[in-house]
């Protein structure tokens, strides 16, 4: 591609296959406590 540079693997759809394990951090427990951002959290599923 000469007009586009894609920054990531775009795997959001694939993430559902083994997703929803719930082992990740509750997002509000990390640093915010008043505003919710989820995309900056890490997936903690070793099988993903």
């Amino acid at each position, binding site marked *: 591609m000469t007009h586009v540079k894609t920054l990531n693997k775009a795997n959001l759809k694939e993430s559902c296959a083994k997703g929803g394990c719930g082992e990740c951090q509750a997002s509000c427990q990390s640093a915010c406590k*008043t*505003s919710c951002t989820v995309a900056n959290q890490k997936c903690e599923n070793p099988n993903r």
Partner: protein
Amino acid sequence: MIHKYFQNGYYIVLDVNSGAVHVVDELFYNMLDHVSEDLAEECPEEIVRAFSDRWSEEEIRSTYAEMVSLKKEGQLFSADDYAQFADMMVSSPIKALCLNIAHDCNLRCEYCFAGKGDYCQGRMLMTEEVGKAAIDYLLHYSQGRHNLEVDFFGGEPTINFDVVKKVVEYARSKEKEYDKKFRFTITTNGLLLNDDMIDFINKEMYNVVCSTDGRKEVNDRVRARVDGSGCYDAIIPHFQELVRKRENSEYPENWQYYVRGTFTKYNKDFGEDVLHMNSLGFDQISIEPVVADPKQPYALTYEDLPEVFEEYDRLSKIMIEKQKSGKGFNFYHFMIDLDQGPCAIKRLRGCGCGNEYVAITPDGDVYPCHQFVGHEEWKMGNVFDLSINKEMKDNFARATVYHKPKCQDCWAKFYCSGGCNANNWQYMGNVLDSFDLACEMEKKRLECAIMIQAALAE
């Protein structure tokens, strides 16, 4: 659905449903205004005509072909397939507690959401008995989860630190029997921190949130002691000592900390507070907009947004420069992992309050989160009788981006995951009605975070 924006010289296109992030050229960026999601295989003649004044026909056709190619690869105009997972977390275990170990505080911060520490319920400390019962409550409701979180919160938890220690000891004693891993965190204003507390925190706490607002004059204006005097001079050396010891501790798994502040209408140049924190030796920093009744003098309102956005822009450029010169630091709201972030299922419902995450008061009452505490209608159980309002829990489980009308057409829904339910209720009157002011700032932060990734990928 796509979202495109131009910032700091970068033409950025997000494909919302796949999560793909593209940096494109000007022609590609402008061409997107002329196409619909059902992209034709061949470049329409009207598109060639629309751009032929500045670009050659060959360039126009090759750009269009790349657009078609991206769509075929599922990275542009991809479909939303996630509604099928919307109910997946209903009846999920509870995995995280906000343990309000002290409904009392030794500061009187002007903007405190917790009634200056007592949540308007009277000053009170949690007993060891309640703390242990809260751990039992979590163990009872967390079947199927290995990692559990307990945040010692307040008020100010160091006021009641003996109970913090006893609760940690009790929980650790249960880990093996229940096959659990407790991750403790603590949120402190730093005033009472001493060597004993610091050593205990660095040994036991996975994360520490150190509350300060940045520059001395900014901090002391709103973060005052009971007698009205500022706290900056007392707390900063405590936080520096905590972080110094933490970075050299024998428990490297407990590396995480945040120096975390709140910005208000008084310091819309909050980027200076971020940089000030960094100059003090801290490299894990979070500063967030105050959430407050618009009648309060410190409250941020819609008219403040242009200045706030400009400051986020300025801060993001400074952070790129610092990162490229090897002096980078983390700003919590600009952190984003485009590849290994949470799964789409997690992204449907955000923090999990009232469902996977609850707050416990010194009385042992259970609320959906710390921000609902003190509002009796939101009490959903008590740790001593192991009660839980199942209907309320299920309603929170279903508070997904598919149930929040304003999220339906919002490009940021899989990044913010529907925002803060408590803020929605407090300022819009309904958990499902997104608080627009917070949404606007969240979207701006996300744009900055992604732009930074584009700049660092060069």
